Structure formats: C-alpha cells, structure tokens
C-alpha cells in the first residue's frame, strides 16, 4: 500500500492549504442566488416594522399622534420613546461611550432620525402606516459645520447640558465631545519652529458611506414559552451583539441566540448597534411574535453609520534635502448627533495615530477634537481598520505637499524617508510598534514595473504640449505608499464595550478524517469558509475540501469579537492555526502509540506523522482521526478536538505601493484611469485568488470615494445624496483593469505570518487616485484640493488655475 503513496509535492497539493488559489466554496450558492440573508428569513406569524423618520435635521418633537396609523387594518403597534422609556430602552449606549436615542426623545438631531416604530402585518401596511403617524415638529437652528458647532450657542445635546467630562475626558464646549492627544506636542512644535522647511495644509476628508449591497436589518423572535430570544441580523460582531442585548434587555445571555446569516457586504456599516435592532427586539417582546426590520437603501444611506468626515490640518517639517524631521496633525472630527463611532474603547479617533505612515519621523503630535453636529451618527471604518484611511490619506497628501514645497520628486521624497528594513520592529513617534516591513524593495519594484521615469517624462511632454495648445488633457501620476495597522488587537489595549479583542476557533475532527471548525468572526464576503479551511489544512494535514467552516451563530460558535478592521486573519486566523497545532499535538501522541514508538520519535510530514529515520512507517491524519475514536489509548482521552482563544501580541502592519496613471480632460473634468498598479505585502499569502479579488474590490471602493462618493448635506441638514442615482457606486464600466503584484514580508508574531489584506487596497487606493488627480495639475500650481474629485470639482480646479481661458 505504501508504494501507492503520492509523493510529497502531490500530498501537499492535495491539501489545498496555504498558497493555493482554491475557488471560493461560498460562491456556489452566491452565484446561484441561493444565499440566505436576513431578508430571506421568514418565520411563522412574523410582523414587519418600519420607521417614521424625521424630515428635519434639528427640531423639537412637540407631539406624536398615532391614532390614524393604529386605525389602519393590519397595524399592530406604534412604538415611540414614551413606550420604550419604562423599559429604559428609549436610549442605548454607543460603542464610543456616548448614548443614542433609539426613538426621538423630545427632539431630533439629524434628518432621518428614528421617531416612531410601526409594526404591521406586512411590509406594505407598515409603510402606509408610517405616513399616517402625525408628528408635530418645531424646527431648531441647524448646525452642519463642526467649526460652527464649536462656536454657536445652540446646544445640540441638551441631555448632556452641564457635563464638562465625557467618556474620553474634558469637553471644551457644549457641542464638543472629546480631545484625543498623542505624541509630544512641545518637541514637535520646537522642531517645526526650527525646521528648514515646513509644509502646511488643511484637507477635508469628506463624509461618505460604506453602502453594502445588502442594507441593515434584523429579525427578532421572542419565545415567551421558553424565555429565549433569537435574533437574526446583519451583524459584523454577533457575539458582542448578544452581550449588549443581554445587558440592555436584562435577558440572561444563555437565553439569547444571535445569528448572523449570510451578509451581503459590511465594510463597517454593520458593526454598530442600530435603533432598528432594538425596536425589532422590543416589538417581538411586546407582541410575542417574530418582528422583522429591514431598512431600504435611502434609510441605509441617511441613517446607519457613515464614514470619514475629518477636517485635518497638517504641518510637516523637513530639511532642505527632504529628510522629514517632525509632523503635527490636528483633526476636527464631525461625529453627527451622537458619538456612535465604532472604535476600540480607548481609541476615540481609532488608530488615527498611524498618521506618521511609512516614514521614519522622529517626533510627532496628533490631536483630534470630536464634535456634535446635526448629521447622522456613525464614524465607522469603511473598509479599513479604525480611521486608518484618514491617517493614510493625510500623510500621503502631506508628502505630496512637502514635495511641492521642496520642488522634489514625490517618489524620491518617499524613498529617502521610508523606515528601513533593519529598523523593524519599529517604534513610531505616536506609539505603535510596526512588526515588519521592507518598504524600499516594494517601492523599487513598483516604480520599475510602471517605468516611473518614463511616465514622468511623458507627463512633462504633455504639459508642454498642453501649453502649446496641442492637447486639452493632462496626465497625472498618482503615488501612494501605505502602512496599515490591522488585527485589533491585543486585549491589553483593545476592547469593545469591555470585551477584549481576542478571537477564537474551535475544531472538531470527525472519525473519518474530516472536520468542522467554528470561529468567532463572521464573513461578509471575505471568503472565510475558503481561507480558514486552508490555514487548517496546512496545520492538520486534512484537505481543505474536508473542512467545514462555520461562523455567526452564538449558540454554536466560540465567542469572538467579529469581523472588521482586517482582524479576521490576524486574530481568528491565528486562533485557527493555534487550535490546529493543539490537534496536531494530540495526534502526535496517538500516532506514536499506533506506531509503537515514543512521542518524540515521530515527526510531522505534511499530512502524517512518520517515524524519524523510517519514513515508510507512518500514520496519516485520517488514520489518526479514526484511532482517536475507536481505540483505547492509555493516558489519552478519546476524541480529537481543540479550541483556541487567541490574544495577539501586537497588531499586524500590511503595506503596499500603488501607482495610478490618469488622463484628465480639462474641459469636462472627466478623469480616465489609464493604468492602476497595486503591489500589496500582506505577509504570508493564504489564497492568492481571494487576495486578488479583495484588492480589486477595495480599489473599486477607493475609486468611488476619491472620485465622487459622498454623503452631502445642504445648510438645512438635508441629505443631498440619498439614492444610488447621486451616491456614486462605480460599475464595471468606470473601473479600470487593475494590475496586482506582491512582495512577502511575513509578520514575525503571527503563527503563520499572515497580516490581512481585505482593506489595504481601500486604504492605499484612496490617496493614490486622489494624488493622480492632484498631480495632473501640479505643473500649474495646484497644491491641494479636496476630494471627492467628481467631474465638476475637477473642472473647478482647472478653472481656478486659469486653464479655461
């Protein structure tokens, strides 16, 4: 039989483990329309909820008359804050240490705020009844500008009146939330004062929205007989939702089951807890039957968590020959009506303090002021780890501005300031320890591949041709080099509502040599069922095809903090590898017993233990699995299972080098992306095909944000971009062909060296697209212009530079 044994290479390939471009096992059901999303869940007797929402951005709620709505046949209940107050559920805590109205309690603070919850027999009746609820409002002055908010007498949060201390320290004004400071202010100022060159710029990173294809929703089912609450929902962190639901409702945690079924994209939008979830729970408790709430597209865009909205002012100091000596950053952060940012508790501005980027900057200072305005609450990490897109955009723009100030090439300026390979692990001025990197190699590879020098030459010729009137298009070369910080995070400094940000994996090997592994994370399109099986395949020597991955049901999966901030591979992926190693340790004892040798006399070889020095004597993992269930092995418990709760020692720091070549029609403002090159280093690569897919998706969302996607408000706080006609979601038509590339610098502290990649392309992509637009106008004196670079704003830039005369 041993003669038939495939060779090592073949055995290894059969596992479909690390490095294999295995097809996504999820896609069979998704591409056939057989996914099972929240809105697919239909329970017997289920009712439907819908919100009455405020048309005003700031108003007092004078009265709510439900009579007409309640008279409509099929309407079961209309809930208002008054109804929730006795349960103490008219307000709920936010992830950021603030509280938020579940239903308007006396006033509304943003357009689209939830005012009343109608429960009816079907979705149509609910919508009709919403129109019949009569709400009388008294309009109040609207504040949509955070700088104005910090000056005005208008008090947005009357519930906080007189409170000079918030969840994150002193409040300076009644509309101020917190100041978060990092780094050394005095030394930074000194360096700026003494610097040979200082470049200064203010930039607005506009408000946008993650806009997943599937909107948010939940189905709550309270079984009054056994006292158990089942909650299906679009949750990126189902276990935390269970804990929060228990704390809020008083239902014991073992009596709550939270299920995240298939999720149609999250991108941060599904991290927070929304009034709809709470209302569906309360309505189910009140009515005793299941209640579904699913928001529509406009509700999603106008009320559930936005992203960004940071006003950032930077000062960067350097020597005349371009060595950066210090960085100062101040942010005015518009958080809307409630502080519902989704960040680890101790980080009210997320990891904005990664804003020194990929550069060896000796001293830096960051201060962030959070401010209330009459806009929707949120502040989620849209396809990024907490505020990392903002940080990377900031530094990558500051580098460009400094290059202009120094009259230097921006690629060269980056090169001379990169953290060097031998400086890792690198302590950043703002407090992080970068685990590993080789920036110079990645940068040289990128520049060489795109023929950077050739591009600059062509660009210079184009400028001359433009000046001679021979062309009306300009050419931009967008550069970005980013370092991400993902995989939150060490329990010692990262928690969400007190829950440490570990993650988990529990594995059961079945007697016939297949397995199920359950994790505390939840895929929203990342392909966990595919990649986590691959990690495990390489660890335990069973084919990935024989391993089921399950997530999202709190009754069966081990506790975990969920999926966002590219944390699944760094944290749950590590837990998976560690649990796999526990399986292997036990398997080793079983193999040694079966082979009648000492434990130390066998060694692991791809999918089996072999007797050292006698490779023809072995036991495969399949054989071992069977033995674990059918043999009495002295000193070894039956069965083959393991669980690991992994607390990462550090974050991981993926990085990458991106180049975008763009042609811009000066007369119409239309940009055309000629080339986009993306080199990503995410450490060990688990599934190259999935990585490529993630990079394509992240770049497309980056293109969207840079070139047009925004949540815009008018002066009265009306949302101007509340449908997909105006909220820019690019189609295949607007998207270029992406060229992907990679280097591999494993994380030294992660069990398999993986760093996470799902968000890198978004983080690095936004500044790259933006820099391309801005670079096109550099020869004509542009220093900085704000995103989004839609047609009219690009046109406006050209117009202001006098290019239309």
């Amino acid at each position: 039989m041993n003669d038939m044994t495939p060779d090592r290479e073949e055995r290894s390939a059969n596992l479909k483990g690390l490095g294999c471009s295995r097809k996504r096992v999820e896609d069979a059901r998704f591409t056939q329309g057989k996914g099972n999303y929240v809105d697919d869940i239909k329970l017997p007797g289920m009712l439907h909820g819908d919100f009455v929402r405020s048309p005003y951005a700031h108003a007092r709620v004078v009265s709510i008359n439900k009579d007409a709505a309640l008279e409509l046949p099929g309407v079961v209940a209309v809930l208002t804050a008054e109804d929730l107050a006795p349960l103490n559920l008219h307000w709920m805590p936010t992830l950021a240490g603030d509280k938020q109205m579940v239903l308007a309690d006396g006033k509304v603070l943003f357009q689209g705020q939830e005012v009343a919850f109608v429960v009816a027999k079907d979705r149509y009746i609910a919508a009709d009844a919403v129109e019949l609820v009569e709400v009388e409002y008294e309009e109040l002055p609207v504040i949509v500008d955070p700088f104005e908010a910090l000056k005005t007498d208008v008090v947005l949060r009357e519930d906080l009146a007189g409170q000079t201390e918030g969840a994150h320290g002193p409040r300076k004004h009644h509309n101020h939330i917190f100041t978060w400071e990092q780094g050394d202010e005095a030394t930074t100022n000194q360096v700026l004062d003494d610097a040979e060159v200082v470049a200064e710029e203010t930039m607005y990173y506009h408000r946008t929205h993650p806009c997943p294809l599937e909107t948010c929703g939940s189905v709550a089912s309270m079984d009054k007989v056994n006292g158990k609450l089942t909650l299906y929902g679009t949750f990126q962190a189902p276990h935390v939702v269970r804990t929060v639901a228990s704390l809020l409702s008083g239902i014991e945690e073992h009596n709550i089951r939270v299920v995240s079924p298939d999720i149609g994209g999250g991108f941060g939008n599904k991290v927070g807890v929304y009034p709809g979830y709470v209302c569906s729970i309360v309505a189910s408790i009140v009515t005793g039957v299941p209640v579904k709430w699913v928001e529509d597209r406009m509700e999603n865009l106008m009320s559930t968590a936005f992203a960004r909205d940071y006003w950032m002012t930077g000062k960067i100091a350097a020597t005349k020959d371009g060595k950066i000596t210090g960085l100062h950053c101040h942010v005015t952060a518009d958080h809307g009506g409630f502080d519902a940012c989704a960040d680890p508790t101790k980080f009210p501005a997320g990891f904005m303090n990664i804003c020194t980027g990929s550069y060896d900057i000796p001293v830096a200072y960051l201060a962030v002021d959070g401010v209330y305005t009459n806009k929707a609450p949120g502040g989620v990490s849209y396809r990024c780890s907490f505020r990392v897109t903002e940080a990377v955009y900031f530094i990558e723009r500051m580098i460009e501005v400094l290059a202009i100030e120094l009259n230097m090439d921006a690629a060269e300026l980056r090169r001379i300031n990169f953290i060097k390979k031998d400086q890792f692990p690198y302590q950043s001025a703002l407090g992080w320890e970068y685990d590993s990197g080789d920036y110079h190699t990645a940068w040289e590879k990128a520049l060489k591949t795109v023929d950077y020098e050739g591009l600059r030459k062509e660009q210079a010729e184009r400028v001359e041709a433009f000046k001679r009137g021979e062309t009306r298009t300009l050419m931009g070369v967008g550069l970005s080099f980013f370092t991400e910080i993902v995989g939150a995070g060490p329990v010692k400094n990262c928690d969400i509502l007190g829950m440490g940000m570990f993650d988990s994996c529990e594995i059961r090997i079945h007697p016939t040599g297949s397995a199920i592994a359950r994790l505390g994370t939840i895929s929203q399109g990342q392909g966990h069922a595919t990649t986590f099986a691959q990690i495990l395949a390489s660890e335990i020597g069973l084919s990935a095809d024989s391993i089921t991955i399950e997530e999202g049901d709190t009754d069966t999966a081990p506790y975990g903090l969920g999926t966002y901030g590219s944390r699944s591979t760094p944290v749950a992926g590590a837990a998976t590898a560690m649990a796999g190693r526990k399986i292997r340790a036990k398997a080793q004892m079983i193999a040694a017993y079966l082979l009648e040798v000492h434990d130390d006399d066998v060694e692991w070889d791809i999918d089996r233990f072999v007797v050292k020095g006698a490779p023809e004597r072995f036991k495969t993992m399949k054989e071992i699995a069977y033995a674990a269930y059918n043999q009495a092995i002295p000193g070894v418990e039956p069965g083959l299972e393991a669980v690991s709760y992994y607390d990462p020692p550090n974050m991981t720091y993926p990085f990458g080098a991106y180049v975008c070549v763009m042609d811009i029609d000066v007369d119409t403002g239309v940009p055309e992306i000629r080339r986009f090159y993306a080199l990503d280093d995410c450490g060990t690569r688990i599934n190259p095909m999935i990585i490529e897919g993630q990079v394509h998706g992240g770049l497309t969302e980056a293109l969207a944000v840079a070139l047009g996607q925004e949540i815009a408000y008018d002066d009265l706080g009306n949302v101007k971009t509340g449908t997909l006609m105006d909220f820019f979601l690019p189609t295949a038509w607007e998207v270029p062909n992406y060229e992907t590339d990679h280097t591999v610098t494993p994380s030294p502290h992660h069990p398999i060296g993986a760093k996470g990649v799902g968000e890198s392309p978004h983080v690095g992509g936004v500044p790259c697209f933006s820099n391309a637009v801005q670079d096109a106008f550099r020869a004509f004196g542009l220093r900085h212009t704000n995103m989004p670079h839609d047609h009219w704003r690009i046109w406006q830039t050209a117009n202001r530079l006098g290019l239309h005369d």
Partner: protein
Amino acid sequence: MIPAAFEYHRPTKMDDVIALLTEHGDDARVMAGGHSLIPMMKLRMADVPHLIDLQDIGGLQNISIEGQRVTLGAMVTQHELINHTALAEVAPILRETALQIADPQVRYMGTVGGNVANGDPGNDMPGLMQCLDAQINLTGPSGSRSVAARDYYEAAYMTAREDDEVLVSVSFDAPRSGYAYEKQKRKIGDYATAAAAVTITKDGGKVASASVAMTNLSDVPVWSEAACDALVGTDCNVDALAAAVAAMLGDIDPTEDNRGPVAFKRHVAGVILKRAIARAWDRA
C-alpha cells in the same frame, strides 16, 4: 421605497386603456417599461391608484421603416433600438443614443414611448426626437392626433399629451446626414450632465442644414434654432463652432444639482456640443 397600494390593470385593447383612463382620470396612469414610473411610486412621489400595464396591447411593438420614414411603436424597448439592423442603417443616431441610456438591464425594459412621454428633462429620447423633428402620435377618447416633438414639452413632466391620451408611436424622416449623440454623465446609469443631438447635411463643403438639440440643460429638451442657423453655410470651422455654442447657450437654462453648478454645466454643454458638431460634420 415601498409603494402605496394600487389596482393593477392589464387590458388587451387600446379602447379599454382609454376607457380606464377616462373613468379614473387623474388616478390612473399607463405603464410601459416601468423604469421611471415604478421608482417614482416606490419613492411615493407618484401616487397611482390605478396602474394600467400596456404590455398586452397589440400594435405598439413595431419598428417600421418605409423609405426614409421611420415609425417606432411606443412599446419598442431601448434594447430593440440598439439591435435593429435596418434601423441602425437608416437612422444610426437612434442606436448611438440608446447605447448611452442607462445600462443593459434598464434598456431591456425602458421603452421609446415611456422615455418620450415621461417628460423628465433627463431623458435622452425627447431631445433626440426634437433634433429629428419627429411627430408624436397620440390617441385618446376623441381620436388620434400628432404633435411635433418640438412643441410637445411644456415643463418638467408637463407635456402636450392630455391625461386621457396614450402615446402610440413616434415617427420621423431619417435624416440623410452626419449625426452624433454626445453625452457626459457621471457613471453608467446616470442622466446627462449635458447631452447634445446633432445632425448635419453637407453640400459643397458647407453645412446645408443642421439640427441641434440639448438634453438636461433646462426643464425641457432644448432644440436650438439659433445654433442651427449659426452652422448653416459654414464649414464648421472654429468660429462657426463658437457661434453655435454661443447661440445654444442663449437657449438653455440649467439649474444646479449634484452634477454641478450652473457655470460648470454651461461650460460642459458648450464642450459637448462642439464635440457633437465635429463628429456629425465628419460623418456628413
């Protein structure tokens, strides 16, 4: 985005459609592809207690070409405009325009009649029909009549069609001319920031006749007679283009929206028109 309740009618005869429209007046609307009407109903911006589906009415689905005379039935879809070989030969500007409307999914459903009847300044067919000097053929309780596309549009969503009339077809003489439909939009599926339909006939190296219509730059499509006049007799040189643009700018009246402010739209309208004229001239 949940519509209010409505009664759904699906008659098979035009007489029944007219009868339903007469009976329910303001409360009834016909539906063609539904890709403008249904979104409005879902937004509850259109309240339609009686929805009359036209898809089972015979005789509205034809594309007929007799010599240069083209008649497009109201229920011809934008997709069919693109795929009709004979039409592409005799009036290729239809195909060029239809390809710039929305995306394939929408074009499978959206119809010529719906696009022309709707009265949304963003629709591309109305400007095109004005450029082609088409006749819009209506039928109603008191019989049939035709209205020139250039006289049809009164204001946004207000047209010469009476509430109880149905648009049955549009007809026009296919121009033996150079043509172009040029459109700037933010993305696939977007309405025009600015669009221009241009036809030009050439005689002895000069413009013999020209027709210019602009889309989404006013609350109605704008056929610019002044722009046409500025081109006739010229060889479409720089000065002629400038004069045509200046004339067109006198006729449009764009408003600010998310696509941009008025100054931008006026500038882009000029650029788009110049490009359309240049292409039509090249093809003439």
